[in-house]
């Protein structure tokens, strides 16, 4: 087993990895930028190495500096977390060249699965369902039209180069196809300098269902059941749960088999996630493989009783998987809520700033993976995730209420967070009934504003605070100019 691991990440995920390392008797080395001198992952690691300026390019995305830190630390292995360089095949390759064990799949696997067209080909070849579609370098309307009939309407035109919705059109019938193709191609050309488009079946009200897999270097592959991650804002997941209300035992078995097949087909090693789109009729289609530890891995840990990071490290050190598929028995229900420093009233605008007060939830069925503490200043250079709150209960209905209770017990002052939004969402009938589709927020919570059920109490608290001001300890209650808070400032802006 490794004696020391360097964690090439920050925030809650760095802390998450540090904890398991400490429990395995492995020393940890953190890395940090100027903005993170007092970050929790720096405080909690055995050692910490300075990378550079706060800009990610000078620090957490800077391969040379990270490699240098590994050398200095004497770590034998590197855990990339998620984000930053976690899915950078060149980085994984460089680690290998430098004699550092990269805790993740081989560089070649990251590379081929990172290429959407190549990944789709691998899956198709191995009998894993993909969204019916047709790829074409140049637009040959007749061929596309023939394929469109095979796929069936509605379908969606997407730009090969694209992203962010540009060069995209939904087509409901064949008579609109030609015009739509032209429009999309033109838009793609002006947006990306390349007019290539392709067509795909348009999945109505899809769910995002993914399977956690573990694969060792001896070729053993198992899956740890599904997670449903349909609740998203800006294509970013915000609530995840397992089991999914939409997956029957039969579907679970079939999709699990596909996930394992996908892992085998791509030569996968270590922990990974096979993502599927699920339609209303129970058909599922391969979406992509995430070649890293997933933000939402804790829900799987809660229902399987496993520590995925521990298995990652064991696999990376060359150990055989100690589990077989039959050992994996899920139990109960788990939800994860991501706590972002964002203003949900304002289209989820980021809210960096200073945490002035923090009260964390605890108790039965509650897990908190956090990267912050009271007094910490959330930098604006990085992802707005502050922490993840995970709850477990015997049944989903109880667990939803447990999560609401835990969110209400979670108080973060100084920056705006997604907490009030999450509470409202979890209280909704749609969520309770499991009607969770990827357009959930757009369809049901667009332009959300918090309910204000306790205005009378808030006013009373305001006045009671004035009346008991002398009981506050000095030095803390006064407004500090430097801690200017976005809560009280205004601007003219749009995202």
């Amino acid at each position, binding site marked *: 087993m490794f004696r020391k691991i360097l964690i090439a990440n920050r925030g809650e995920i760095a802390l998450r990895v540090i904890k398991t390392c400490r429990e395995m008797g492995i020393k940890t080395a953190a890395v940090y930028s100027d903005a993170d001198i007092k970050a929790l992952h720096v405080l909690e690691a055995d050692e910490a190495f300075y990378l550079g300026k706060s800009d990610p390019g000078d620090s957490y995305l800077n391969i040379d500096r990270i490699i240098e830190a590994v050398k200095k630390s004497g770590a034998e292995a590197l855990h990339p977390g998620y984000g930053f360089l976690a899915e950078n095949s060149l980085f994984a390759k460089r680690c290998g060249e430098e004699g550092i064990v990269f805790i993740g799949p081989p560089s070649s696997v990251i590379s081929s699965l990172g290429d959407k067209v190549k990944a789709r080909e691998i899956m198709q070849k191995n009998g894993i369902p993909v969204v019916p579609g047709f790829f074409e370098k140049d637009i040959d309307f007749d061929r596309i039209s023939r394929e469109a009939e095979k796929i069936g309407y509605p379908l969606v035109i997407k730009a090969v180069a694209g992203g962010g919705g540009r060069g995209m059109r939904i087509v409901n019938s064949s008579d609109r196809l030609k015009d739509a193709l032209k429009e999309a191609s033109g838009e793609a050309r002006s947006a990306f300098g390349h007019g290539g488009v392709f067509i795909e079946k348009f999945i109505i009200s899809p769910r995002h269902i993914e399977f956690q897999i573990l694969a060792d270097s001896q070729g053993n592959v198992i899956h740890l059941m599904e997670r449903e991650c349909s609740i998203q804002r800006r294509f970013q997941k915000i609530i995840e749960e397992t089991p999914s209300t939409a997956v029957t035992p039969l579907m679970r078995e079939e999709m699990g088999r596909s996930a394992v097949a996908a892992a085998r087909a791509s030569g996968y090693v270590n922990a990974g996630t096979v993502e599927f789109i699920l339609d209303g009729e129970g058909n599922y289609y391969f979406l992509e493989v995430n070649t890293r530890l997933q933000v939402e891995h804790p829900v799987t840990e809660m229902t399987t009783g496993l520590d995925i990071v521990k298995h990652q490290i064991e696999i990376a050190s060359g150990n055989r998987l100690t589990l077989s598929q039959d050992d994996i028995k899920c139990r109960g229900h788990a939800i994860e809520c991501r706590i972002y420093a964002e203003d949900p009233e304002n289209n989820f605008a980021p809210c*960096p700033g200073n945490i*002035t007060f923090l009260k964390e939830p605890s108790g039965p069925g509650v897990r908190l993976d956090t990267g912050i503490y009271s007094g910490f200043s959330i930098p604006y250079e990085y992802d707005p995730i502050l922490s993840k709150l995970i709850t477990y209960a015997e049944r989903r209905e109880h667990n939803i209420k447990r999560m609401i209770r835990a969110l209400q017990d979670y108080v973060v002052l100084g920056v705006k967070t997604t907490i009030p939004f999450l509470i409202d969402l979890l209280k909704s009938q749609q969520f309770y009934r499991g009607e969770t589709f990827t357009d959930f927020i757009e369809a049901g919570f667009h332009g959300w504003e918090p309910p*204000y059920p306790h205005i009378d*109490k808030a006013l009373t*608290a305001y006045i009671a605070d004035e009346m*008991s001001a002398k009981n506050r300890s000095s030095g803390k209650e006064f407004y500090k100019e430097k801690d200017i808070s976005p809560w009280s400032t205004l601007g003219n802006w749009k*995202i």
Partner: protein
Amino acid sequence: MEYKLKINGDIYTVESNKIDDKHLKISFNGIEHEARFERIDDNRIYLNIMGRGINAYIVRNRDSKSVVIDGVAYLIEDAEKTDKKRPKERISRDVPQTVTPPMPAVIVRIMVKEGDRVKKDQGVVVVSAMKLETTLTAPFNGTVIRVNAGEGDKVMPGQILVDIEKDNEGGANNE
């Protein structure tokens, strides 16, 4: 004592009396109630209103406090103070008058230069915070008279990034 407090645009005129160190009485909008209160720490007050316990978490800003109850934050402004101090900014929530970032951010692009004519809602500066780019727009038709920041600068809310002189013609301004 009378307070004029503003929540979410609505102003509440609240009459309050301190009964003793632990009790107060408030009335507003025809609602009247007594409350017991306990200060727990700098940021937490426990209220008991008609037998029902409530935990209020409070953070104090310059002329306002954010009060969190059951996970929801109520931004409460002292209407008298804010009215006196910033008479011209009174309606700023609805009609912003300046180009300033809504959060600490770094400037990615400046899309205007001094002397440029700008239209209302035209993008003038792009800032980035937490992996998200935000375009700051002109609050009205006018002329850029000064650009106060450069690309790569770290900027704070309240900092005026671009000074724009408003056009005089009434018509164009109303659109």
